[in-house]
């Protein structure tokens, strides 16, 4: 079953498997393992951005199409449902009108972008998408009677998915993992008791699980897609487009199809984002900085591996939320007012992340996942390359 579910594309590294399991379990049981509003909203964002980054990886990693318009499609999804709820109220009908409208617009725009990319050189595509995305951002900011301009829109979600909906009177029990581990060091006796906390199930949790299930389904779908003949052609285009063409594949069709699929998934993620966040503005959906973040997540996790999207998203969002705390701690040790303090101040987390990013492009171009797989493959090779005696010894050990 695992074979079918993962489409035969296993993590191929024990460390990676462990990492993925940790992320998977944390997300699946998230609201019951990490107390607090901040952790909860971060978990939701991880689910949403796994979809965004995985679909971006389909373009960047598998086909080497660099697009800077991914946030545009994300924004179309988010604004689509937000504007629909603004106009038609909070029912499911409005929601589906919004989703339908956003999807249509996305198909239209991505088709145009895909077709435009045929007319220009590959490197142009990055620049053209950057300019188009900027024009879209400026349009959304300017048409304030429709979109709320800079202020954005508050999203009215269906009652079952909002905080007011309480399906259960009794609170459920959660288990604070981080609290438990720190508790083991400070007060081992009552650590287990202290780590228990109440979880009041509300529509927000329901919405979280909608996002989580969507993320899992999209991930498995993409895994299926890249390991299908279609995905093989994409990789062939990545390695040598001319040759793929010579073999008789219509690369034009494949490239356009990839752009559209990836854009549609980004739109879906945008819809989920609007529903979870319940507030949409240009800064949290369309900003160029967000686009750069998506790029960072994709590259740090590992381009050309969908597992990389999961790992990259988790690592990046953790850093975004908690690296600042760490830096604040560090800044406490420096002289106040000195240049050093400015360098390690909590607002400068992006500086360190940017540095890390550039270094990782040089030294670990395949990202976290690629590196873990490389190490695992080397170990396997070493083992296979050893003398048969040693291998026998290994078997001996195993028995």
């Amino acid at each position, binding site marked *: 079953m695992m074979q079918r579910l993962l489409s035969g594309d296993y993590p191929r590294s024990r460390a990676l498997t462990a990492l993925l399991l940790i992320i998977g379990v944390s997300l699946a049981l998230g609201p019951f393992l990490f107390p607090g509003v901040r952790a909860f909203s971060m978990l939701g964002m991880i689910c949403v951005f796994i979809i965004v980054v995985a679909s971006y990886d389909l373009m960047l990693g598998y086909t*080497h199409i*660099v697009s800077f318009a991914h946030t545009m499609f994300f924004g179309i999804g988010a604004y689509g449902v937000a504007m629909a709820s603004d106009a038609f109220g909070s029912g499911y009908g409005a929601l589906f009108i919004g989703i339908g409208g956003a999807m249509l617009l996305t198909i239209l725009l991505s088709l145009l972008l895909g077709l*435009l990319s045929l*007319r*220009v050189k*590959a*490197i*142009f595509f*990055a*620049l*053209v998408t*950057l*300019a*188009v995305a*900027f*024009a879209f951002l*400026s*349009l959304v900011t*300017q*048409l304030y009677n429709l979109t709320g301009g800079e202020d954005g829109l508050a999203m009215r979600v269906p009652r079952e998915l909002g905080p007011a909906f309480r399906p259960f009177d009794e609170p459920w029990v959660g288990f604070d993992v981080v609290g438990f581990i720190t508790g083991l060091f400070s007060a081992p006796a009552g650590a287990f008791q202290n780590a228990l906390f109440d979880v009041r199930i509300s529509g927000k949790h329901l919405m979280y699980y909608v996002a989580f299930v969507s993320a899992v389904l999209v991930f498995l779908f993409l895994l299926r897609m890249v390991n299908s003949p279609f995905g093989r052609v994409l990789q062939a285009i990545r390695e040598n487009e001319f040759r793929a063409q010579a073999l008789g594949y219509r690369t034009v069709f494949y490239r356009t199809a990839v752009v559209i699929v990836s854009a549609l998934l980004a739109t879906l993620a945008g819809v989920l984002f609007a529903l979870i966040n319940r507030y949409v503005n240009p800064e949290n959906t369309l900003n*160029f900085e967000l686009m*750069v973040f998506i*790029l*960072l997540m994709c*590259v740090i996790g590992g381009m050309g591996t969908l597992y990389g999207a999961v790992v990259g998203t988790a690592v990046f969002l953790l850093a975004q939320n908690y690296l600042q705390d760490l830096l604040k701690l560090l800044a406490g040790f420096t002289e106040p007012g000195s*240049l050093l303090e*400015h*360098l390690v101040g909590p*607002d*400068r987390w*992006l*500086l360190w*992340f*940017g*540095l890390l*990013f*550039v270094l990782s*492009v*040089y030294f670990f*171009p395949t990202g976290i996942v690629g590196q873990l797989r490389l190490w695992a493959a080397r170990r396997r090779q070493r083992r296979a390359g050893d003398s048969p005696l040693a291998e026998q010894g290994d078997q001996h050990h195993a028995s």
Partner: protein
Amino acid sequence: MSAHDEILEPRPQGAIARFRAFREKQPHLFLLVLMMLVAFFMMDPRTWVVLTISGLAMGAMVFLMASGMTLTFGLMNVLNLAHGAFISLGAFAGATVLVHWLNASAGESSLLANLAAVVPALGFALAVAGVVGLLFERLVIRPVYGDHLKQILVTVGGSIILMEMIHVIWGPNEIPVPRPDALTGAFLVPESWPVIGGVALEKYRLIAVILGLAVYGMMTWVIEHTRTGILIRAGVEDQEMVEVHGYRIRLLFLGVFVAGSALAGLGGAMWAMYREIITAHMGDELMISVIVVIILGGLGSIKGCFYGAVLVGLINLYVGYLEPRLAAVATVGLMVGVLMWRPQGLIPVIKV
């Protein structure tokens, strides 16, 4: 609209043919004339003159910023997305001179004293951006020559680092940069002049136009008439051949990259005085215009870059006057339209 004018000529066949030839051979001039004519009929002449001058001024500043990027691409095949950060860097360096170091001289109202502050400010912006460009080429770009994907990635990363360093050094807030007295205000066109009498032309914009034209002229001269220029053109045509002849093309690359970054810094400093307020993210916003310009003109062409910048400046001002909300959309629409018409840009050759 110019098509109608041509049809009225006595020999329609020949005129249309000539018009077609003009459109195909001089697409940049065709587009420029078309845009100016369309705008001319949509507003009154005085507004049109003011907007055209302002558009040219904006075009001149954008040209300063974009010329470096287009040359780096044409010569080295490097797509430097951190170019915007150099624009910001130049703006902040120039502002430091104006606001902190020579503020006494910048605050006076005589032209000479003002120039004694503005020229060092521009020079400092040029120098800072150039030096940082040197380091940037060595540390960030050199390892990724020939790999576009990695170039995009590391220059995006490098741009983050540079912008954050600006935050570290100058603080996160926006900085007001008052323009020196002698450069504010406007010339009044004498009332007696026909049509445009009484129009006020802002001094600073005229200065920007002059500076832009000067840099354009100088670059064209260097590339067409000096030994370095010949080497640059040869390098664009065929890198290996230049190396075979014993020239150190890496050094040439480095020189062009530094010059390009320095020009971006100069453009940034000019922009700072034009807008009179700067933020670290101003480079990102200007980057869009820069990208549109280099795509419009054709990657790697100086002439195309110049005309592209003028077109972008003009359309920004014209549309900004008619419907302010659509200025950015019109700019990008212009780019998409030109790409549909001529996928390689207006003046596609990488030669100048």
